[in-house]
């Protein structure tokens, strides 16, 4: 592996230098249409996305709420599998060599491909990181060895139920950034507790210098703004998946769906930017960047 900082570290460093927070959209590879994902990734970047999180469709997405479950089912119906998601990353890289891309999914497709083959294919495609929902640190040793060999980050979740000593254990194996799950529940649930997010982000920072992104309950500019006060990045998933599914169901064409997705992303970008620079104005990083 190379000692050069990866795209994720580089992106967070750039953001910190300009006092901004990362906006991280999640999409299911191949949803709502098999050929929409690569144009969508480019469009989201233009609209202000800093990192792209690409969901790998799985038959049994246990951590997902109904919205993203249906996204997985639609993508599977169109024949989209892990290797197709990797092909999308490779195609995205033909035009964008800077924006970090991470895959988010479940263990079994990666187990099925084999850890070594996955790491090789992912690295060749230009992927930056993997987040496997159902592979906590206790189960990850063999996978991490292969990811490290190809310089890929492994992103881990920290949950509201994670006790402090476990946060330490997780941050010992985590690279790239730490993903804080903002609520007890599945993706797209509606009970975000901002105070609890604030406490937990502070707890994570006691153990690691890695950036902390927050996801699971963020659906609009307002909730994104509230979370961005404490976090280094916000993930928006279900709101985006739902919006595109609704447009597709109403018969919208690809351009119209991309346009709607870009508008939502821009809105979230504005929400995040409305608070983030204020916090950093007095900060050394901001002044240095100015």
């Amino acid at each position, binding site marked *: 592996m190379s000692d050069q900082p990866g795209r994720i570290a580089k992106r967070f460093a750039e953001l910190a230098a300009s006092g901004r927070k990362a906006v991280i959209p999640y999409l299911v590879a191949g949803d709502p249409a098999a050929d929409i994902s690569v144009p969508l990734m480019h469009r989201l970047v233009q609209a202000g996305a800093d990192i792209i999180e690409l969901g790998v469709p799985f038959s049994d997405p*246990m951590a997902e709420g109904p919205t993203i479950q249906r996204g997985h089912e639609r993508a599977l119906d169109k024949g989209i599998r892990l290797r197709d998601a990797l092909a999308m990353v490779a195609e995205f890289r033909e035009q964008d060599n800077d924006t970090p891309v991470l895959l988010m999914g*479940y263990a079994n497709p990666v187990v099925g491909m084999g850890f070594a083959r996955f790491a090789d294919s992912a690295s060749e495609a230009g992927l930056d990181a993997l987040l496997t929902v159902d*592979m906590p640190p206790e189960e990850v040793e063999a996978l991490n060895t292969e990811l490290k060999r190809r310089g890929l980050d492994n992103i881990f979740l920290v949950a509201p139920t994670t006790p402090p000593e476990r946060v330490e254990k997780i941050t010992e194996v985590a690279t790239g950034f730490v993903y804080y799950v903002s609520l007890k529940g599945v993706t797209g649930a509606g009970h975000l507790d901002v105070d609890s997010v604030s406490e937990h982000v502070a707890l994570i920072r006691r153990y690691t210098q890695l950036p902390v992104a927050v996801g699971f309950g963020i659906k609009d500019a307002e909730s994104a703004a509230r979370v961005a006060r404490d976090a280094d990045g916000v993930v928006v998933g279900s709101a985006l998946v739902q919006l595109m599914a609704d447009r597709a169901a109403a018969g919208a064409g690809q351009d119209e769906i991309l346009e709607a997705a870009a508008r939502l992303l821009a809105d979230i970008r504005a929400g995040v930017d409305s608070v983030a620079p204020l916090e950093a104005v007095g900060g050394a990083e901001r002044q240095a960047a100015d």
Partner: protein
Amino acid sequence: MNQITTDLLAATPDDAGRFGDYGGRYVSETLIAALEELDSLYNRLSRDPDFQREFDEDLAHYVGRPSPLYEAKRWSDMLGGARIFFKREDLNHTGAHKVNNTVGQALLAKHMGKKRIIAETGAGQHGVASATIAARLGMECHVFMGEEDVHRQSLNVYRMKLLGAEVVPVTSGTRTLKDAMNEAMRDWVTNVDNTFYIIGTVAGPAPYPRLVRDFQSVIGREARAQSLAMTGKLPDALVACVGGGSNAIGLFYPFLSDEGVAMYGVEAGGDGLATGRHAAPLSAGTPGVLHGNKTYLMQDEDGQILHTHSVSAGLDYPGVGPEHAWLKDMGRVEYVAADDTETLAAFHEVTRTEGIMPALETAHALAYTARLAPTMGRDQVIVVNLSGRGDKDINTVARLDGIEL
């Protein structure tokens, strides 16, 4: 075959919940703390004589244990081979082995102060057993059941409602047992503070495979003593059906280090293994990760879980408990499959010759016994786990026989 010594048994699963390479705790981070809490509580209570006494008393006075070991003489004579004995789990309260486990887990829930229980169910037997124990302990109970199974097992759905449980039809994925388990996990992750998840089989994240095995092992312990008393020796063979595998592990476990006892786990062959329309991961699957554990799965080459098919809702599951995966690789248990047709034939045969109507799940074990017994001598003994009664399946059997009730 690798010998399973008592030392190896005592060390399995290990502290990480692994049976060889299988098992483990493949769940999202939100559930880890709850599983660790359950693990440490169970480590303590499983060595606590008061807890064991409480469990044993419930088994005796509420479940009705010990269940009899019954010699099926007419059926044995008809098959013309080994003497066949049925371990009568169908005579338990609620009509199947499932209740042994729900009684045990409900005691754990009580010790943890949880007032709300959830469960997944396929055939409805585990759902009924969970609803039953919830009614007895005054707990709120939600049972997740695939929409297709809700239709297949309408009688059990109504039983659960009578017991005060809420039955939640699951409409995602294949609308069967695996999707019910996904939905139960989603509920648990949302309500983890006040909810105890009673998993119905020896699968799922650690410590479930171990604790469900321990609660079900009463089957094998009784069968071992009964067999010695009635035949003067250990059985030559044990036969049990395997979906997730809890009744099979319950029977097998206390015999694992007895080298002379052959064991057969019978999976659901559906339309036949060659058709791909079955639910037999040990016979025709490959290792992977699903529902919190590494085990044999029915999956495609991309790691997507395949649709399963079986006449019995309780075996219609693409995975299997990790201890079975380990026992298969060790060569200790032979895993075979019985298809829908021979299962239905065995159902009728045992009903007509012994006056015992087995559950369709159980009839898979009987179908294999019908193949095995004639190959053995008259002085040899087979113990079959008669894991559940067939009342719940009468509508299905009638439909398959072309009869309208």
